[in-house]
Structure formats: structure tokens, C-alpha cells
């Protein structure tokens, strides 16, 4: 039953990917400007420029260019970057590990700490703890990442000198970026966990469980958590896509390479093949994240499998 659901859900990804590739291609090519102006330098002639436009096929109709690109993509060929002068696959492969490490750690950090904080604030009887967590949630959801990043650097790197200011060498260069990205994520996950737990706690069956004399701890872990995790899983799944491309400003401030930074650089130079390759990767990551979320929900809640069949 669940396998069938996963199969059909995965099948849906094919038409969705094709539609997304069309949208990505069109948006990228309809942007004003072109890559050639970022390639030529003082001294080259107008004829050189025309030759480059022909060389990269930019004089072809958009539809021809699209099919040439998507045709190559189906054979696993991401094409050659125009301005950055390297195979797009190489550029993505060089940047992907940095994004995966940073995004993955930030995801894990925000999930674990967020669920823990949300649970504490929903179950504690101490108002001080609850006020603290609520204050943290408010701060975490509103503080801009680049500003927090600079504050972190000033305090932990300049004052205390615990961590390097920037760079991507060694584990200690990861601590501040992970905390910066994770901070916003923790607040979000904590808020969702807290609200979900409070909702479930008001259900009649919980009153019954208390009446039966079950310890509060058992009620929380065995009965409240499985119910409350549904919306949390949905939120976490949506954030999987963010692992790859959601750290652009943080990458910029901490001087780390990554898919987000590559995308922004390529976008500024209108390096079409690179922008398309990066965007497609990000879209795939979001789609996979949603798929994982849906499957996880289906596994946790049989009603979803029934309804969506």
C-alpha cells in the first residue's frame, strides 16, 4: 500500500521536472542582458562578439536552445559554463559538498534543538522557561541572517577568538555558519512543535490517558509526540530544499563557497548554463524534500494514504 503510494508520487516528479525546466529556461533567458558582455574585454572587436554569440548558440531561437539544453541534460550533460569557462557539472560538484555539509548540519541542528525547545516550552510548568523559549522563538524568526552572522563573528571570532572569522577549512569554520542558519530554523521548528503539542494536549483521549493514571512522561513520548510530529515533519521536509540553496547571505559573509554563491555569481554574469544547472538542482532538492515529507506523513498516518490514493 505504502510502496504503491511512493511509486505514484515519484512518477509525478517527471512531468513536474519537465515543466520546471521550461520555466527555469524561460526566466533565465528572458532576463535583460547576456553573458557575452561579461566575457569580452577591452580590445576585442565587434566581430569577435558576434562570433562568440554564434559559438554559444545564442543567436538560435529560444525553443531550439531549450531542446538542445534539455536534450543534453537527459544524457547527463550539464553543458559548459560560458563566463566561468568550466563544465557546469564540475562547478556544481565542487560547490555541492560545501552546501551539503553546511545545510545538512544546520538542518540537523535546527531539527533536534527546535523539537527539544518546542517540547520543553509546551510541557514545562515553569513560566520563566516558557517565557525564555517564546522570546527566543520571536528573536530567531525576526533577526536577519547577515546581521546575526556579523554579530557572531564580532563576539566569537574577534572578542573570544574561539573560531576563525571566515573560510571553509576544518570543522571550526563550520560552527558559526551552522549556528547562524540554524538559529532561524530552531525558532521555526520550536514554534511548530510547541503549537502542535498544545493542540494535541487538549484532545479528549489525552484526558482519558491521564484519568487512566499513565505517567505524564509516557503520555508525552508514546501518545502526544506521534500526533504532534505530523506538522513538524511537513515543515522539516520543506526545509530540505533549503539545505542546498538557502544559505547565500551566510555563505557570502563567512566567505564560504556553495551552490547558492555559485548561483548568485552566475546570475549576475548571466552565465545561462550555470544558472539553469543550479536552479534545476535546487528545484529537484525541493521536490525530493516534499516527496520525503509526503511519504513520511503517509507512513505515520494511514488516513493520508487512503485519501491520496
Amino acid at each position: 500500500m505504502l510502496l504503491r503510494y511512493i511509486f505514484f508520487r515519484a512518477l509525478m516528479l517527471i512531468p513536474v521536472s519537465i515543466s520546471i525546466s521550461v520555466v527555469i529556461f524561460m526566466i533565465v533567458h528572458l532576463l535583460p542582458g547576456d553573458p557575452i558582455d561579461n566575457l569580452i574585454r577591452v580590445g576585442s572587436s565587434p566581430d569577435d562578439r558576434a562570433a562568440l554569440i554564434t559559438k554559444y548558440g545564442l543567436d538560435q531561437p529560444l525553443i531550439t536552445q531549450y531542446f538542445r539544453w534539455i536534450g543534453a541534460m537527459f544524457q547527463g550533460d550539464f553543458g559548459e559554463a560560458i563566463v566561468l569557462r568550466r563544465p557546469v557539472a564540475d562547478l556544481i560538484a565542487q560547490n555541492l559538498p560545501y552546501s551539503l555539509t553546511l545545510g545538512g548540519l544546520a538542518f540537523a541542528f535546527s531539527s533536534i534543538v527546535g523539537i527539544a525547545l518546542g517540547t520543553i516550552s509546551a510541557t514545562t510548568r515553569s513560566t520563566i522557561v516558557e517565557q525564555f523559549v517564546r522570546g527566543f522563538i520571536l528573536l530567531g524568526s525576526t533577526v536577519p541572517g547577515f546581521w546575526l552572522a556579523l554579530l557572531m563573528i564580532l563576539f566569537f571570532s574577534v572578542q573570544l577568538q574561539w573560531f576563525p572569522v571566515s573560510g571553509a577549512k576544518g570543522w571550526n569554520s563550520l560552527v558559526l555558519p551552522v549556528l547562524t542558519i540554524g538559529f532561524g530554523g530552531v525558532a521555526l521548528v520550536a514554534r511548530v512543535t510547541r503549537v502542535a503539542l498544545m493542540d494535541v494536549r487538549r484532545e479528549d483521549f489525552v484526558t482519558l490517558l491521564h484519568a487512566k493514571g499513565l505517567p505524564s512522561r509516557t503520555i508525552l513520548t508514546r501518545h502526544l509526540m506521534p500526533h504532534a510530529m505530523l506538522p513538524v515533519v511537513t515543515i522539516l521536509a520543506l526545509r530540505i530544499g533549503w539545505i542546498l540553496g538557502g544559505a547565500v547571505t551566510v555563505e557570502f559573509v563567512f566567505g564560504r563557497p556553495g551552490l547558492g554563491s555559485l548561483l548568485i555569481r552566475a546570475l549576475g554574469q548571466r552565465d545561462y548554463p550555470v544558472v539553469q544547472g543550479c536552479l534545476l538542482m535546487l528545484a529537484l532538492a525541493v521536490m525530493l524534500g516534499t516527496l520525503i515529507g509526503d511519504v513520511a506523513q503517509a507512513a505515520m498516518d494511514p488516513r493520508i494514504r487512503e485519501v491520496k490514493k
Partner: protein
Amino acid sequence: MRYATKTKLLSGTALLAVGFLSSAVLAQDVTIAFAADELGATSYNPVTSSNLNSATSLIYDRLVEQDADQSYHPHLATSWEEAPDGMSWVFHLKDGVTFHDGTPFNAQSVADWIPDFTDTENAYLVAAIESVEIVDDLTVKLVMSRPEPNLLYNLSSTFMGVPGSAAYEEMGDEFGVSGAVGTGPFKLDSFAIGLETVLVRNEDYAWASDLSENQGVAHVGQITFREVPDQSTAFLELKTGGIDLLLGVPTDFLEILKVESNIAIIQMPGTGINYMPINVTSAPFDDIKVREATGLAVNQEAIVASIYNGVGAPAHNFLIGSLPEAQVDPMLNVTYDVDKANTLLEEAGWVMGDGNVRTKDGTPLSVKLFTQNGTEFTSLTQVIQAQLAEIGMEAVITVFDSSTIRDEYKNNRHQLAVRGYDWNNSDILDWFFSGKRLGYPNISMWEDAEGQRLNDVAMEDSKNSDERIANFKAYHEYVLSQHLFVPIYQPTKNIAYNSDRVNVPDPVRGTRFRSQTVLDMTVVE
């Protein structure tokens, strides 16, 4: 020479005293952060790359070097002769030079290298060279298809660093990425795109140009070049010792840096101009009097004093001051004169109306003023807007990203724009004012028979360097007489370094921060 030997002896003694190698090597490490405009290089292949950074000049030597005064100095070529008709050049090469892979540098290396440019984006650098003839092992003759008085400029470019031809052939697309072979004072040790480049000293180096005091092996053992895109982060890295030297410090950061006791600053003469092109096809700028008045309204001296704290120099024509072609008839230089500007506008029929905006036949003197985002141009554009208001011209500012603004130029939707260029050669005039490149780079949209004739003469009919200077000066003067742009400012290039860690020669040798300067850098013991 004596100094170099002494340093070697000293570090040798230190090495023995300390007793193990690693700390001695560490002490000679220097970390440098690239300037913002040289980030993102994906290769150290000088032949095929479109973007090369400062580290490239340390891996490859050039035949010729250019100094800050724009003079040329021998390097891998010890001397050269140009044929009187400009149709051939003979270069005598330095003896005893070897590439990083041990192969010798000789006439064959040059003959193998020049044809590599064919069909690359950099082919224009050697477009005038028809063939390379080997006269003897250390002499080459470049046979030209047309005279190219600008050949030495091209040869001194980073893009014309000489690669080892054997390695170049063997490594193919990987050359400059996974490895690189040149004759430079440093070897490429590792390269992580977008992150850092590590160079180690070439222990055989003994062929520096006369721009360096140190003629032997570099004093610095290892250099790590880092990419730090955010200027605030780069500053904090410099302050905390994460980096020792920061290239391309923005002028508005200088005041903050000066406060730090261990940070020293070097200001190099800049290699470009900030200016405001005027679209001559768009009314009211189709009237030369309005264009001239616009130029007279801009107070360059006040801008340098108020925005840049006196750092840099006001610009009064299109070329940087160290180029001979910049020495034009003083009457043609654009200098602030608000009274004359107002008179010209009155003559052109623009009378002062309500709210201090001039009008003509009921049309207000309101114009579009474009600039690029994320650059130092934003505050400059606001000051220009205020200065134009002084002559009754209302300028409405729009900010674009660098690719979109070029599209606006090409579609002729612009009137005035604040921008800059970085190029220390007079052929920049051809780039921005040739009728063959309307829209972009010819943002002024200027098409003029006499202008094109002077351009063709300067670009194609100059037989030698003196003729070229005279021809470009004539073209420059004609461009100035047509009021196609407003010159504003010549920025300096700024370097900041941690003086507790390194000594950097001031002034920097050459037009930019390159191997000539790095050879003379020392680590503070």
C-alpha cells in the same frame, strides 16, 4: 644581493635553532585576500581564461613588464627591436630560465605558446602577429600582419604570462585547474575554486625583472590567496590576523582601517576613471550646449574632498593622468564652472522655472540618471544629482544590476549614467566611443564621421608608439570637444596589510599588485 644572502643565512640559522622545519615554514607563510573585482576565477590558464586574479602573475612571468608610470621593462625578454615599418619585432630572451617542470624557457617556448591563442576569447591580444620565427635558441622574430604599436602593452598583460608548452599540451583542459606550469617565482600548490589558492616558492627563481630589488628567490615561502567576498568580513580577518594583506580596499574603508595601529595602507595610483556618459541621441542632450553645461555643473574637486576624503584625484578628461594621451589642450579639459553652465542653458532656450527646474516650451529639464547597484557609485550618483540641480536640471535616479543596465544602454533607454572603467591604455577611447559599438560600450551613442576617421587612424594606421600617442591624443581631443561624457574621479587602488606580520614595499612596483612587489615582500620575524 647582499641583503638577500643575509636573509637566507638568517633564516637558515633560525631553522637550525628552532630545530624542526614546520614552524620555520609557517613563519614564512603569508595569507592574502583577493580584491572584490578579482573573485571567482575558475582557472589559472592565462591563454583561455576570461578572468584572472593577482595570483596568476606569480605563477607566470611575462616577456615584458609595465611600471606604474606606464614605461616598459625587460623581463623574460632582455631587449627588443621593432622594425621601422612596424611589420616585425625581434625579442632577445633571457638565458637560464626554466619552467616549474624543469623544461627550459627558450625561443621554442614562445613559438609554441602564441598559436595557442587561436580561437580563444583572448585571440585579440595576438591578432596582429602573423607568425613566430625562431632566429636562434634565445631569439624570436614576431612577423606582423599589420603594425601593432600596442604590442608591448599586450605582452605585459597577465593574460600573456608564458605557460610551459609541454605541460600545456599534456594537461589540456585541466591546465590551470589541477596544476599549472610557468616560470614565475611561485608554483601552484593547490586551487579550490571560490575558496583559496596556495602557492609555494619556486626555489630556482633567479630571473626577476628590474622592477624588483630582490633578484633571487622570494623571501616569502608560501602564499595563500583567499576569496573573502564580504568587505566587512575581510576587514575583521585582517584585524584578527586571519589574513595578512587585503587587496582592493574600498576608499570608504580607509578611515576605519587607519585607526588600527597594526594596519598599514598603501595607495597605488589607480588605473581607471569614474565618469558620466551622456546619450547624445536623447533630447535634450542632442543639443551640444546642454551637454557642455552638464559637464560644467559637476564639481570634481568637491566630490573628491567630500565623498572620498581627499583620496584619489579629480578627473578632467577621459584617460588616467599617467598616460601621455591624457595631456590634452587644457582648454578641452572639463572643469567646474556653474556660471558658464547657466549661460549655456539660457542660450539653448532653457529658462529657469518654478521649483528651480528649467523649462523650454513647457517641457521641464528633467532627465534620467542611471547607476549600478552594489557599488561605490550610489553616493556619488546622489551628489551628481544635487550638483545638476544647481543648474536647474532635475535628475531622476534609477539603480540597476550590471547586466540589466547594459541592456538599457543597448535599447537606448538611458540619458545619463554614473559608472567607471579600469584600463590603463588609451585604446579605451575606441572601446567607449567607436561608432561600431553603439549602446554598449558606446553608451554615449555617438556616431560621427570625423570621430570614426580619427579612431581608425589611431587604431590601425599608427606605425609606432610615438605616432600612436599623437593619433590617440588627437582622437581624445576631438571626443572632448563633442562633450560626450563628464569626467569625475580617478580612484586609487588601496592595499591594507598587517605591519606586525609583513613588510610590503611602498610604492608598489608596476601598474598593479603583482610578482614584482611580492618578490620584495618580507615576513616580520
